[in-house]
């Protein structure tokens, strides 16, 4: 009946089915930029957020609301006990949550090409244990709160702590070390990190048996509290002693937190999962860019600076006395009606001695089998009528690397590098290896500026 009633309530339908999907799009779109590797990483937090929401705001608040509204009184006249009431609400919450999880999985697979890197049985176990644990949380709060307002206060305090300190929103490795240590005491951490370790690192569910056990214990104790402290009417108030007793609910988390911290490699494992995701994400980012014909870079898609700078790096004349400087920026507009271009600017300042200074920007890329045989590279440039040199360094050292000079003016113009430059000296396949395109400003001392765009194979 509870399920039927939810289906008839627009607000409940929204929060049960649509809201989690919105979160999936927010996480996958904003945080993961649609990058599959990152979507895989953030899928656990999305599922955990959904499970937490149904436990705290669905099941827990629903119980308090029914009591405050007086609708439990009628049930009290029937030959059913508090245990039946608690178990039936728990079951309804679980059955309502399953289709939502299915919807999340299907949406992530359909819209973000996310592979489900676990068996359906593993997913079911994670979701069941998680739902049970957070239902226990919601029911415990509902048991000790005398009013809706009181329940909201308890819920908010715990909700926000779990939301921001357990990897549900902010990835744990991005938090200060001491917060990561604290996160080991939070149940949401167990579910999030188990999901991530299984999805990203390919670990088995059994490797996270301890986390599952603690979540099961907390769910069971929540259920017992809800049963023993169940109140049919709002006039019945809970004693201070019972409230204090309910604090024992946190004991499993304290034990688990101490154990996880004592193990030592706690934060390292989380950081490793995160960096695995980041590396896979960068590789995919590169591949995605290449998916547009022969385009290597157009600077159009929203990119985090750190991702951009992984492929584009500045180098200068070096040496302790060098004074040359260079920096990269994304500017508007780009070439051929596009929105963005990469700006390489700085100042050439000779160091004392015979060598004149220089500043170079280096772009690392590789060719894939899809690109076919050796091909040339071209890019659009504009600048301040200063001389630049460009060359491509092969993956293996070569006796002499050809260089091309160009003097860009304020209009966009195309620079083409011959296909022979991307052929290996020994004639072997040039795919799968790393090449470096270097553009060098080494003319007379002074400021320089070069805009680059539409870097592609031709």
């Amino acid at each position, binding site marked *: 009946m509870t399920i039927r009633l939810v289906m*008839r309530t627009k607000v409940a339908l929204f929060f049960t089915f649509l809201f989690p999907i919105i979160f999936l799009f927010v996480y996958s779109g904003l945080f993961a930029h649609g990058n599959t590797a990152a979507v895989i990483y953030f899928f656990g937090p999305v599922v955990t957020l959904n499970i937490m929401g149904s436990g705290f705001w669905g099941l827990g608040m629903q119980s308090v609301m029914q009591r405050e509204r007086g*609708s439990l009184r*009628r049930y009290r006249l029937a030959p059913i006990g508090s245990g039946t009431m608690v178990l039936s609400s728990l079951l309804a919450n679980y059955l309502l949550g399953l289709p939502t999880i299915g919807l999340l999985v299907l949406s992530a697979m359909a819209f973000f090409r996310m592979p489900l890197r676990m068996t359906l049985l593993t997913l079911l176990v994670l979701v069941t244990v998680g739902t049970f644990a957070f239902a226990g949380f919601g029911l415990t709060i509902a048991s000790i709160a005398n009013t809706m307002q009181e329940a909201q206060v308890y819920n908010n305090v715990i909700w926000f702590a779990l939301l921001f300190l357990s990897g549900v929103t902010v990835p744990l490795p991005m938090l200060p070390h001491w917060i990561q240590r604290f996160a080991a005491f939070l149940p949401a951490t167990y579910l999030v990190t188990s999901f991530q370790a299984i999805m990203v690192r390919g670990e088995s569910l059994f490797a996270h048996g301890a986390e599952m056990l603690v979540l099961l214990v907390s769910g069971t104790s929540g259920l017992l509290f809800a049963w023993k402290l169940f109140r049919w009417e709002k006039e019945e108030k809970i004693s201070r002693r019972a409230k204090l007793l309910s604090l024992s609910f946190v004991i499993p988390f304290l034990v688990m937190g101490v154990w996880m911290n004592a193990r030592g490699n706690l934060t390292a494992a989380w950081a490793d999962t995160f960096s695995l995701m980041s590396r896979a994400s960068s590789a995919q980012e590169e591949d995605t860019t290449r998916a547009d014909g022969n385009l290597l870079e157009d600077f159009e898609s929203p990119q985090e600076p750190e991702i951009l700078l992984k492929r584009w790096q500045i180098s200068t004349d070096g040496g302790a006395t060098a004074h040359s400087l260079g920096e990269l920026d994304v500017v508007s507009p780009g070439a051929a009606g596009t929105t963005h271009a990469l700006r390489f600017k700085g100042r050439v300042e000779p160091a004392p001695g015979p060598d004149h200074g220089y500043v170079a920007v280096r772009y690392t890329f590789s060719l894939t089998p899809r690109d076919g045989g050796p091909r040339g590279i071209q890019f659009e440039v504009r600048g301040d009528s200063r001389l630049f040199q460009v060359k491509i360094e092969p993956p293996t050292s070569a006796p002499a690397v050809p260089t091309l000079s160009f003097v860009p003016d304020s209009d966009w113009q195309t620079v083409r590098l011959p296909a022979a430059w991307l052929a290996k000296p020994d004639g072997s396949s040039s795919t799968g290896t790393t090449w470096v395109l270097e553009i060098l400003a080494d003319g007379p001392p002074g400021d320089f500026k070069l805009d680059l765009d539409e870097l592609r194979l031709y």
Partner: protein
Amino acid sequence: MPNENNSALVHVEDLHKRYGNLEALRGITFEIKPGEVFGLLGPNGAGKTTTIEILEGLRQPDSGTVTVCGMDPAREKAALKERIGAQLQATVLPDKIRVEEALELFAGFYRQSASIEMLLERFGLAEKRRAFFEKLSGGQRQRLALALALVNNPELVLLDEPTVGLDAQLRRDIYALIEQFHTEGRTTLLTTHYIEEAERLCDRVAILDHGLVIAMGTPRELVQSSGKGTRLEVRLAQPVLPDRLKQLDAVVDCREAEGTYFLHAQPPARAVAALIRFLEAEGNALLDLHITPPTLEDVFVEMTGRRLEE
């Protein structure tokens, strides 16, 4: 269904219940026989709801003996709930539950249940079977609450203020439904603070005040035992002092309000004759005379000095 045994279906003896400093029940005693409609009449705060909730097993008495259908409500809750049906003062159900679903849901909680179709027809809810609870009027909600009380075909029905908050017409509709309980021989306990309800529906009434039973019997017995007698409402051509009317033969009491004299007389015929003789002797004239039999309200006022709805 009705208990064939003639012994009391409900037995309450020296029942006490206290909430903090408030003594809600101060030792009440009564019995309800099978097939009887028994009323607990009293003002708000008299202890009616506390009594009915103890009988339902929802509250524990501090002391005293309670037996319902041969069971102790505090110890044999589940078994007792199978045999009783109850209606709360205010029944709240989920907004989006349909009438038919509510009956089916609650019927599912019991080992045996009445026919849902029969209940829908009997309580005039057949046309509203698909309506959500939130869309029902006050009268329809109360009829649904009564139908829910019968969903397990109980031998004892406990109704807590079944018509409170309803207008006069809706109250009469509910009375007709409760009268059917009596026709079926179903034992019923109802609490009320409406005189009309107690007089019309109840075989016997216990009047409660401040947690005590101050009078008990059939409505007729209670009224006849009242020393106040029949009420005469009199309007005269010329004013007289109420004390002079009070001295007339068979007049028990007299008070005046806005030109109308309210006399209580026993027996009334002798008082009317004495009044006419008095008016002739005084050169006064009778403009209007209403004779109304005494009510339970009069009994309550006589015993407590207060009106029921004060």
